[in-house]
């Protein structure tokens, strides 16, 4: 019966919302500070951010070798 199946569906929605309402949260100030710290701490290991020398770039343009 469509009536009882929509009640079953609704009960699931309510149950899920209860779960989501009850989670532990952290203050935005803390979360934001941690995100920022992660970015700054790893900045030097981020080649797209810092750029890289041609010699260390695996995708550098291939030099053409010629036989002398």
């Amino acid at each position, binding site marked *: 019966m469509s009536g009882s199946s*929509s*009640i079953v569906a*609704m*009960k699931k*929605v*309510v149950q*899920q*919302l*209860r*779960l*989501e*309402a009850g*989670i532990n*949260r*952290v*203050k*935005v*100030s*803390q*979360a*934001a*500070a*941690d*995100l*920022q710290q*992660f*970015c*700054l*701490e*790893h*900045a030097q*290991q*981020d*080649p*797209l*951010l810092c750029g*890289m020398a041609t010699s260390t*770039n*695996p*995708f*550098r*343009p291939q030099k053409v070798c010629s036989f002398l």
Partner: protein
Amino acid sequence: MGEMEELRKEMENLKDQITAARKTFQDSTLQEAAAGVTVVGRVQLKTRKTLRGHLAKIYAMHWGTDSTLCVSASQDGKLIVWDTITTNKVNAIPLKSSWVMTCAYAPSGNLVACGGLDNMCSIYNLKGKDGNVKVMRELAAHTGYLSCCRFLSDTEIITSSGDCTCVLWDIETGTQKTVFAGHQGDAMSLGVSPDFKYFISGACDFTAKLWDIREAECRQTFGGHESDINAIGFFPNGNAVITGSDDATCKLYDLRADQELLTYQDSSIMCGVTSLAPSKSGRLLLAGHDDFNVNIWDMLKAERVGVLAGHDNRVSCIGVSSDGMACCTGSWDSFLKIWN
């Protein structure tokens, strides 16, 4: 009738409760926290390689974990595994169904997967004994198109589908281990957390959901977008989620604060986001759009710091390699480009 009314009231109460709880933890904003940080200087990446070979629109690409090989899927009915440094095609795999929408590379490098309008996820073994690449498994059970897939290992893969569900599969037996139901619209994209314990999904119900893989439940739901979410990814430390939507914006949601921290938008950007990838440190957000471009954002300052313009059609997929050395874009113009 009475019970339904009570349940509806409880649903509204809980929704208000969640909104209120999020507000109490909103003691600041990411803007305020990052006020002292200088915006990243203009980011200008160059096309280093163009991968030519597909004969039709490219719909998806995924880097292998070695940061050298990648797999791409095109509606020319082929999966191609590329060596991005030499631009050689390592494998060109013909597909049963050309209507492919997603592909994935297993972390081990042994398997690739793809799927699309055939509603199936097909697993291919790249390291078969006789050197031929064959279908190893066809994972069939979804009642809608396969929008995305990501391997957890050689034995498990997660898929998202137009049937609104995501599924965790046992590849060896070809069966569903867990069905993750809850989205009210097509699930369009998924991302796995760095520790492989969670995954996130973005859907046409405008929400993103965080799922606990082993507990088999949805932990958190994030709203705010005004249209379909097409792309989703984890911030590199696993504590935040980035989404890209048809509403032309990207959003950053923090998992621990359980709320949206920033929206990346500009009045000059009017085309939907099709794909996204963070750089290795998370500082840069690269987002592919319908207008043929990739916008590069300073993720902390929400300012656009660069554009990758090089494709002659929609950018459909993007990925940053694990070592962070390069970004790969795939387009409806049939080419993939490697940038850094």
